[in-house]
């Protein structure tokens, strides 16, 4: 079995970091328009390192939602990281100590998971630190640039950047739907229910955070009921 070090991690993380830089730039421009101060956004990106969770979190914050609503929203949206973390435990080098596991866990994102879980051989602590480094810098720096330099952009360009984060989301879900019927089912069920909860007047009392939670949980359950996943498949 081969093991990889810090330098290999840095190299693997560079494309992720560049991607995060541009997406978080768009995220910050969008979030400032929702009324969240720039410094708060930088702290948010630096401590959360997650796209979907931050978009949903800013939505709840901007609406002055409840803390429990925010916590539940983050829990549901980021639940996938639990599965990724579980998957990664199977590949950790035996030299990983408890505190090293606790530190490496901070960097579990969709892209970092995708790269590390498909690496051949065991994952070492230096490799995981190298891998997380540039994505973290890119995500936080992009947020700072978007929050404070976003105003320097022409209005039309900064408006258009509002779509960047959703473009990235589509780049994740569309290929997934192409590959697996279950994924397509989950998306259609969640989107359909989400539209109903948002536009049927009866459900107007539901805030955006709860709409996301309810429609996503129901969509995933419908898909899991119709297309269950056997152990060993679909853990990526």
């Amino acid at each position, binding site marked *: 079995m081969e093991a990889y070090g810090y330098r290999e991690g840095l190299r693997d993380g560079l494309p992720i970091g560049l991607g995060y830089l541009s997406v978080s730039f768009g995220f910050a421009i969008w979030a400032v328009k929702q009324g969240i101060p720039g410094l708060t956004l930088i702290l948010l990106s630096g401590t959360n390192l997650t796209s979907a969770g931050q978009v949903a979190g800013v939505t709840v914050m901007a609406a002055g939602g409840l803390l429990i609503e*925010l916590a539940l929203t983050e829990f*549901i949206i980021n639940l996938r990281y639990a599965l990724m973390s579980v998957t990664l435990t199977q590949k950790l080098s035996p030299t990983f100590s408890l505190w090293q596991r606790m530190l490496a866990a901070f960097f579990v994102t969709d892209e970092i998971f995708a790269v590390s879980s498909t690496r051949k051989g065991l994952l070492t602590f230096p490799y995981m630190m190298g891998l997380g480094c540039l994505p973290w810098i890119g995500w936080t720096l992009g947020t700072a640039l978007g929050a404070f330099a976003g105003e320097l952009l022409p209005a039309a360009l900064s408006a258009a950047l509002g779509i960047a984060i*959703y473009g990235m989301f589509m780049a994740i879900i569309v290929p997934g739907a192409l590959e697996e019927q279950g994924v397509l089912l989950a998306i259609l069920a969640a989107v359909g229910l989400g539209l109903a909860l948002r536009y049927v007047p009866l459900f107007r009392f539901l805030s955006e955070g709860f709409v996301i939670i309810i429609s996503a949980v129901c969509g995933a359950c419908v898909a899991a009921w119709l297309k269950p996943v056997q152990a060993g498949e679909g853990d990526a």
Partner: protein
Amino acid sequence: MKLYLYLLVMAGVTYLIRMLPLAFFRKKITSPFLLGVLHYMPFAVLGTMTVPAIFTSTGEPISAVAGFLVALLLGLKRRSLIEVALAATAAAYVTSLLLQAF
């Protein structure tokens, strides 16, 4: 002040979800239904967050639809995250410039 409470809750919940399983999990989940729920959840979340919000993300529907269609097309071609994000932005930008010009 409330903003910092929000920050604390978000960072705490997000970190614990990542950390607890990585630090302490030593077994394997075997229930096909539970595996399915965990596997499908990210797609369901991203789906319901993207539609309908993407159509108001540029402040004006026509450029947003253009960006959506480009993202859909490139997603079907399995292009990378960054390519799709930038192409959708470019499509929305060019469309809004064209709208202003005519």
